């Protein structure tokens, strides 16, 4: 189920503006990788290129290759819709569909695409996905209530369940806890630990403790100044990044001397 990602010489643009430059990174299957770095360094922008969400923004485009188990996402003829159904994404703010019930939110990826699914298969998928997102016990009695009625942390886990239900190979998370309280954050972090048994997880976070707690490997992004492109500075085992970084900039950042 889980696949690896290899990025080769990727440049990311907004129209003519080069936002991220020359990224090379290899992300192993069934692992958690954290992207850290100061605000505006391009870590979220780079994350969005991994499932072609970047090009949804007008003017957004890339140069270079992103390989999913050897298949290039950006090869001409590849349908971005196809890419996104294999590489799911969880966003900064929980965004369940307000017009749908909890159950329909989980089934959104299936139903919105107009696929037929039997009642029993749907029930199994809803339960499996919600269990996978550690939400089943909290919502099993109110599956037909609107998803927007849940608390922020529950909504975010609902969004994760919705992503799992599509059965992706990779799950991208863009600061998934930045809008949540500490207890909800803890629940999500526990969940990420479980998710890596089945999926490749890539998470952007501005919280270094979080990166240290959840990730196997960490990538540090930095920017030389406003208007300059962001770059991948250092990528290594999380323990190494936090205890013994090779680069001065990384050390300054993780020790809190700037950023």
């Amino acid at each position, binding site marked *: 189920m889980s696949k690896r990602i290899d990025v080769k010489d990727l440049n990311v643009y907004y129209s003519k503006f080069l936002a991220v430059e020359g990224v090379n990174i290899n992300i192993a299957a069934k692992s958690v990788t954290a992207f850290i770095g100061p605000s505006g360094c391009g870590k979220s922008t780079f994350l969005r290129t991994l499932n072609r969400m970047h090009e949804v923004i007008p003017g957004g485009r890339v140069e270079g290759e992103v390989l999913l188990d050897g*298949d290039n996402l950006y090869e001409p003829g*590849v*349908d971005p819709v196809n890419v996104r159904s294999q590489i799911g994404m969880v966003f900064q703010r929980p965004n369940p569909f307000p017009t749908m019930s909890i159950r329909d939110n989980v089934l959104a990826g299936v139903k919105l695409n107009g696929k037929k699914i039997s009642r029993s298969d749907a029930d199994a998928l809803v339960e499996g996905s919600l269990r996978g997102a550690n939400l089943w016990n909290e919502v099993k009695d109110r599956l037909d209530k609107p998803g927007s009625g849940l608390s922020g942390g529950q909504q975010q886990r609902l969004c994760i369940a919705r992503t799992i239900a599509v059965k992706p190979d990779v799950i991208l998370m863009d600061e998934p806890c930045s809008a949540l309280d500490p207890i909800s954050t803890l629940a999500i972090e526990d969940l990420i630990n479980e998710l890596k048994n089945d999926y490749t997880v890539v998470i952007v976070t501005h919280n270094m403790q979080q990166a240290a707690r959840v990730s196997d490997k960490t990538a540090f992004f930095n920017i030389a100044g406003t208007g300059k492109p962001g770059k991948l500075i250092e990528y290594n085992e999380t323990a190494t990044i936090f205890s013994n970084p090779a680069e001065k900039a990384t050390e300054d950042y993780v020790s809190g001397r700037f950023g």
Partner: protein
Amino acid sequence: MTTNALKSSGPSAGRAGDKIFSGAALGAGVLILLTLFAVAVFLFIQALPTFTADPAEISGGAGFFSYILPIVIGTVIAALIALAIATPIGIAVALFISHYAPRRIAGPLGYLIDLLAAIPSVIYGAWGYLVLAPALVPGYQWLAENLGFIPIFGGPASQTGKTMLTAGIVLAVMVLPIITSLSREIFLQTPKLHEEAALALGATRWEMISTAVLPFARPGIISAVMLGLGRALGETMAVALVLSTGGLIPSLIQSGNQTIAAEIALNFPEAFGLRLAELIAAGLVLFVITLIVNMIARAIIARHKEFSGAN
């Protein structure tokens, strides 16, 4: 790498749906443009005989220009009467709702004024014809007796009340909600800080309004009045039913005068041939006039948009 697994598998069939749907959306937008273009061309073609015909054959017997000029003037007079009445009252009503009325009833009161806008124009016309016009007859007689030396109140006053002034008053009632609702929106956007600063300096409520609210809202008020003018110029029913039409005369309290919209409505059903072309040409003139007025209003709104952010 020989085959890319991402290329083939998956719901690629849906791709056609994307093309069809975006094509339909684009098509609808283009359809609007094409229709407007075709309509403009067709209108012009149908109006063309008016400009090529022998001037003696045009209504009035002196060519299109001398036919259209009096009714253009009549249109403008009716609209100006409406604005002269509706502007001060409309602004005052907007101020009442935004700054004077108790907050709890301000919303329902605003809705009440919006109701004025919801009433169909033909009902205003019927009301003007059957209720307002007879009620105004004594007032017109008084005006003719006491202010008859002013040309616009020249006697003898109409015995039916079906005059330009009545039509103007009905139009005023119809444009009032436009002016009120737009001005009210602008008044509510006045920065609270400016208002509180004025009050803190010991200003009375009226001084606060005249120093903080009105200057801030001036462009908004002007464009509201311009939009009201556009509506008054093009309004048909109030004039067609209320005004007893005739040639151009200065007195507003006698029967007489005519507007473009009413001229078309009253004569179109029986018109054919050259008369039809005349009326369509008159419609084009009305369109151009309202277009210019609306453009000016929108230009004012657009120019001041960046200042209305109230921050």
